């Protein structure tokens, strides 16, 4: 059972949109922005409010890779594996990140909820290949060593705050 605060936050978001089917995606976007993920309990709540079935809401939400039902880390590292990044060696970067953080293809988020490592199909930053994003920030021309340094830097940043 989710804490009451999740529902009041959801109400706040819901009130900004018309209670219609087409509001579904913007609403789950905002929920995800708020919590870094979409708490599963909120989806039926949203669906009911805008007058669709939870099955339909799940169908839409599960379609998009961007939406996650699992809590994510403070830093979401999205490694681009589009064609340009792939040929310029994005996979070694990904492998280094995973080994640094003890993650794998199955396990995306560290137990301390600090890091999530995912791949994306294209960041639209092909000229900067291989690229990755940390939350909303793009890091160009990555190498495995730069990835190690990045993790260290982010850890320090987290320790400070």
């Amino acid at each position: 059972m989710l804490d009451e605060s999740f529902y009041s936050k959801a109400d706040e978001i819901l009130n900004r949109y018309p209670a219609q089917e087409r509001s579904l995606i913007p609403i789950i976007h905002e929920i995800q922005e708020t919590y870094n993920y979409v708490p599963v309990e909120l989806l039926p709540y949203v669906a009911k409010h805008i007058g669709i079935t939870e099955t339909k809401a799940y169908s839409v939400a599960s379609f998009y890779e961007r939406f996650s039902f699992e809590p994510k880390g403070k830093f979401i590292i999205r490694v681009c594996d589009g064609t340009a990044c792939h040929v310029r060696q994005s996979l070694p970067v990904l492998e280094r990140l995973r080994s640094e953080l003890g993650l794998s293809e199955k396990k995306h988020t560290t137990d301390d909820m600090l890091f999530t490592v995912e791949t994306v199909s294209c960041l639209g930053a092909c000229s900067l290949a291989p690229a990755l994003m940390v939350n909303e920030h793009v890091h160009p021309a990555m190498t495995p060593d730069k990835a190690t340094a990045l993790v260290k830097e982010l850890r320090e940043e987290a320790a400070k705050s």
Partner: protein
Amino acid sequence: MGVMKIDGFPVEFTDEPNILSVIRKAGIDLPTLCYHSELSIYGACRLCTVEDDKGRMFASCSEQPRDGLSIRTSTPRLVRYRRMLIELMLASHHRDCTTCVKNGDCELQNLAHRLGVNSVPWGYRERKYERDFSSPSIVRDPDKCILCGDCVRVCEGIQGINAIDFAHRGTDAMVIPAFNKKIADTDCVNCGQCRVVCPTGAISINTNIRPVWEALADPNIKVFAQVAPAVRVAAGQAFGGPRGENVMGKIVAALHRLGFDEVYDTTFGADMTILEESKEFLEIFEKGGPFPLLTSCCPAWVSFCEKRWPEFVPNISTSYSPLQMLGSVAREYYKDPKNNEGKKILSVAIMPCTAKKAEILREDLKRDGKQNVDYVLTTEEMITMIKRAGIEFDALESEAADMPFGIGSGGGVIFGNSGGVMEAALRTLCEGPDRPAIEKLRQSGVRGPGPLREFTFNYKGNEIKAAVVSGLGEADALLQRIKNGESFYHFVEIMACRRGCIMGGGQPAHAGFRTKEARKHGLYESDVNTQIKKSNENPTALALYDTLIKGREHELLHKHKHAS
């Protein structure tokens, strides 16, 4: 209006919604896996692709007919194309065909054979997902799903439920309930329409054949069956008989040979339902409300009402459904040592319906903690048992149903059609000489095409406003109108499946328009051939009121308290 050329031959078209319908009208059975005329057009399977004069290929289900258009339906290119489509579907399909429940009745398998797919060049796909046995009515096997979306569209579009839908995407795409829940934990009402349209073994009937078969072989158990009206007009075709023919006599004979000690007719139960329901209606009608009275025979509808329209639950008649009526009365009858011969009793119902499998388990329909009926077998399961036993159905001599629950009226037998319950109920209120009164009712609008029919019936100078609706999406809209005050009725019959029980979730699948019509006419014809037309003139039912159920009507024939 116009003329098209199909494979060089001119074909006229009028109001066909798409080219596919024109092609089929011209006598060419173009293969499809995702096209059902009653569902929205999806265009997913691409098997109905045709080629025009310029070599352009398009899906004929998704294009309108145009005057002067010239198309070809099976050029070498199209044949290759279709074969590859099937090969690709088979590549991602868990192909345990020889042991699959759908073996021999699978549309994918049939098409693979018909289109000459002799090998699949992309290896074998192992089982990836768990099967879902949570529902008493249907079994989900996602490894068999080809993503045609038929089940999704019938569940959402026709039934307005949307218990299952597409989820995830690409190679991970599946048809599942939200959050991959068990189907029993969703709004599913067990109507089984998804399994009727499923071309493969991805959704099938949750079968109870085994325990029934074991009981049949046990000399210490007396097993009796009741057979619902709609079963008799659907089973014959599976044994090579004509569409829609009433084969009740042969069904009785086959069930006797399978070892059933007695075979009763649910039509008798239907008459009991009508006796009670029309009494209930008159009481409400004379009292002046609350209206409308909603019928209680269809368990998928009752479940839908409880889940989506709890405010209308008190309007549902408390009378037992025909299955429960016969089950309840027979249970009482077999308490007498004279009747049970000192044996244990097993009560089986042969139904066109998957939701009945759930109905018999309902707590509020149990009496003294016991079910009124032990097992429900669908028409499909009965056909399977007859075939498994090697009984030559078509060679059987007809036999009559057993007494004392073997006689039913014409009103009882038409229960299987949408509108039948209403017609049977109103028949009991007909005044004056029977033949003209029944004929007048028949033409009042209670019969006819379409999922919704509204009409009026004159009773002792008062007008009864009635409606008949089939398909839960349509019922949902009707209830909304009633709630909004836009519509008013005294009496409403609701059946979950379009056209009623003849198209129930347990009936043989692949029924096209002609089969649907034939089943309907089959029941109406059975009514014509029955001497007793009105449920309140069924002598065996009436006799019970003086004996077995005397003073116990409420206990034996009514649901005691609505679950709400």
